[in-house]
C-alpha cells in the first residue's frame, strides 16, 4: 500500500455493481465513497476531493458526460482521474467520453479484477493505460 490512501468515488445508480466495486476497491486498499447520480457526484467531488471518479454514463438527474464536462471546466479539479463505465459502448460514445475529458472508458461487462488493476496503473508514473 502507498503511504497516502488513494480516494475513489463510485458513481452509479445500479446498487449491485456498486456493492461489488466497493468491496473490491476497499480490499485493494482504496478509500471509497459512493454517489447514486450525477448531481450527488458533483457535490461529493467538491467535498471529498477523490483521486479517481469511477462513473457510469447513463444516470438520472445528470449524466456521466455532463459531470465529466463540468469537472473538466474546473482547472482545480484537473488532477482527478475520470473513468467512465458504460453499458452502451458504441464507438461514437467512447469517442465522445474521451473528447469530454475522461481518462478511461470501460464498457460493461468487464472483469472487476482487471478494472482494479487498471485503476492501479493510473497512478503509476506516466501511465494512462489503454483499456
Amino acid at each position, binding site marked *: 500500500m502507498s503511504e497516502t490512501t488513494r480516494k475513489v468515488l463510485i458513481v452509479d445508480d445500479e446498487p449491485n455493481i456498486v456493492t461489488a466495486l466497493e468491496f473490491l476497491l476497499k480490499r485493494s486498499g482504496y478509500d471509497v465513497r459512493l454517489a447514486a447520480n450525477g448531481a450527488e457526484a458533483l457535490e461529493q467531488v467538491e467535498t471529498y476531493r477523490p483521486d479517481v471518479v469511477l462513473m457510469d454514463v447513463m444516470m438520472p438527474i445528470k*449524466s456521466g*458526460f*455532463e459531470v465529466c464536462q463540468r469537472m473538466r471546466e474546473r482547472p482545480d479539479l484537473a488532477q482527478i482521474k475520470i473513468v467512465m463505465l458504460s453499458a452502451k*459502448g*458504441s464507438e*461514437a460514445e467512447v469517442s*465522445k467520453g474521451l*473528447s469530454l475529458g475522461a481518462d478511461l472508458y470501460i464498457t460493461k*461487462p468487464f472483469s472487476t479484477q482487471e478494472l482494479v488493476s487498471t485503476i492501479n496503473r493510473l497512478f503509476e508514473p506516466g501511465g494512462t493505460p489503454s483499456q
Partner: protein
Amino acid sequence: MRFLRGVWLWVLIACGGVLLVLATGALLLYLATDTERRPILSALASESAPLLSFGTTILLVVAGMAAHWLFRRYPHAARQLAEQSRSVLAAEHGFRVAAADAPELADVASAINQLADAYHRVEQDLDQRSADARARVEEERDRFAALMSELSQGVLVCNADGRILLYNSRAAALLAPFVGSAPRGDYKPLGLGRSVLALLDRNQVAHALDLIQQQLDHVDRPHARFVVSVANGALLRVQVAPFLGAEGLVAGMVFTFDDVSGMVGREAQRLRLLQSLATGTRAPAANLRAAAENLAGYPDMPADQRKQFVEIAVAESRILTDRLNTALREYADALKGSLTLDDMRAVDLLAVVQRRISDVLQLPTSIEEADSELWLRVDSYAIVQAMTFLAARLAGDYPIHGFQLRASSGGGFAEVDLIWTGAIVSSEALSLWEGEPMRIGAEETPLSLRDVLERHGAEAWLQVDKIRQISRFRFLLPRGEAAAALAYKTSTAESRPEFYDFDLFDRIDTAGALAERKLSELSYTIFDTETTGLEPSAGDEIISMGAVRIVNGRLLKQEVFEQLVNPRRSISRESVAVHGIEARQLLNEPPIEQVLPRFHRFCEDTVLVAHNAAFDMRFLELKEAAADVHFGQPVLDTLLLSAVVHPSLDNHDLDTIAERVGVRVIGRHTALGDALVTAEVFLRLLPLLAERGIVTLAQALEASRASYLARLQY
C-alpha cells in the same frame, strides 16, 4: 410540236374565214345583179381573174400572218405562263415567270410573280419557325438526357408492350448483366427496344402491373414496389408507376431502381446479431444461474462442493462476457446503419446547412474547413434539420452573430462542427434542447435531436474554448463510402448517351411478319468474329466476337457485345498477323459454348448483319449444337448488298465499301471495331437500296440472293 399544231389551226381558221367572206360577197353580188346583166358580170370576173386571185392570195397571207401573230401573243403566251407558274411552285426560291409581250398578260405575269414572292416569304418563315422548334426540342432533349444521366436513381421507361424506350446510365449500371468481365448467372442484356421482362423477374413485374391496374380507377398516383435480384447479383428496390396516353389508357411504365444490396445486408447482419446473442448467451446464463442458485440455496454445502460451484460461476460469467463482447464487436456495423441512410459528401451536406441557416436565421454562415474526400452515411434531411434547429435555438437565446461550419475525419467517424464565437452556452441548456421536438419557424418534426443522433448511431456534444471564446457543437457522424455512389459515374461515357428513343412508342411488335416489314423499321444486330484461321470445317475456332445493334435506324454505340473466347487450340500465324491476338492471351476467357448463348440473347428478335456473313454464320452454325442455341433469324450480308447497289463494281471488301459510302474507318480488325464499321456501312446502304426500290426485308433478301448468283457466274 404543240406550238405548230396550235398555230396551223389558227392560220387555217383565219384563211377559211377570209375565203368564206369573199365567197359570200361574190354570191351576194351575183344574186343582186339582174338576170340579163349576169353574163356581163361573168365576163368581167373571168377577165379580171388573175387580179382577183392575186388579191385573194394577198388577203390570205395577211390573215395567216395575223393569226400567227395573235396566237403567239395570247394563247401560246398564256400556256407558257401556266407552265412557268407551276415551275415557280416546284422550283427552288428565286425562279420567276418571264414577262409576256401582250400588256394584259404582262399584268397577269407580274401578279403571279407577286404571289410567288409572298408564297416564298411564307415558306421561308415556316422553315425558320420549324427549324427553331426543332432546335428547341433538340435542346430540351439534351437537357433531359443530361438530367437523366445525373440522377442517382436508375430510371427506365417502357411502352405498354414492355419495350424499353429510355434508360439512364445509373439504370444501365444497376442492370448490367455482370460486374467487370465475369458473367454471373443468366445473361440478360439491357437495350432500347428490348423487353423489360427479360431484365426483371417476369412474375414480380406482372404482379406489380396487376396492382397498378387495380389502383388505376381510384388511386391518385398508382404505383407498385418490389425488391428483386438481378443478373449481376445486386438486390434492387423497384418502383413502378404508369403514365397515361391520350385516351386515358396506360401508354407505358416508369421504373425507378435503388440498389439496396448493402442495406439488406445490414438488416441481415442485425438479424444475425440477435440470433447470435440469443443462442450464444443462453447456455452460459443457464449455467451461471444454476451455480448461483445452488450456492444461495445450500449455505451448508461442503467446502469443496462450494468451491466447485464458485469456480463454475466465475468461468461461466467469463464465457457470457466474452460471447457478448464478440457478438457486439462482429456486428458493430449492423448497429449503425439504417434503411434511410445515404452516402453523401460532407462538403455537400455543409453547403445545404449553410444555405439553410443563412435563409432561416438571416445570419452569416461560412464553411471554415471541409475535407472534399470525406463521405458521410446520413439521413441528410434529418441532419440538416438538426443542425439548423440547434443554430436557431442558439441564436434565439444567445447573442450570436454568425456561424462557421467544419467537417473533418476523426478516426472511424466524421466530425461535423457548428461553431460560433462569443456567447458561452451552458451544457444544461443543450441537454434540454436535445430532447425537444425540433421546430424551425413554422416547420416542426416530432423527432428530437436525440432521436436523430440515435438513428445514426451518432453522438454530439459541446466543446468550449473559454480563452478564445470559441464554442463548437460537434456531431460525430458515421462515415460513408465514396465507392457506392461513384461507381456508376465512371460508366458514363464522355459523349451524350443514346439511351432513349421515343419513336419506339409507336412501334407495333410484329416479329412474326419480319419479311414484309420495312428495312428502316427493323432492329439489327451487326456482328463480326475473329478466328484462329479461315477454315471452320477444318477445326478453326472463334477467338473473339463483337456486335452492336441498330434500332429504328439508329446505331446504338452504347449497347455493345464484346467478348474474347478461349479457342482451346493454337492460332495460325496469318490470323495473328490480322488481329494480333495470341492464344496465351485467351487462356482465362470463357469457351464458345458459354459465349454463344449470351450472344444469342443479345441478338434475340433482330436481323443479323455481317460483312461476308456466310463466313461468320458457318462458324456459328458449327457451334450451335454444343452451345444448345439456334440462330434462326434472317441474315443480311453487307458484301452482297453492296453488290446490289453497285453491280458494275468488282471490289466489295469492307474497307473499299466504307470509303465508297463515306464511312470513316477506325478500329478495324477487332471484332467490335469491324462490327461498328459494318453497321455504319449498312446504314449508308439502306437509302441506296431504297433508290432501287428495295425497301422490305424480303426484297433485300431476294436481291442479295440474285446478286450472289450473279457473282457466282462471274
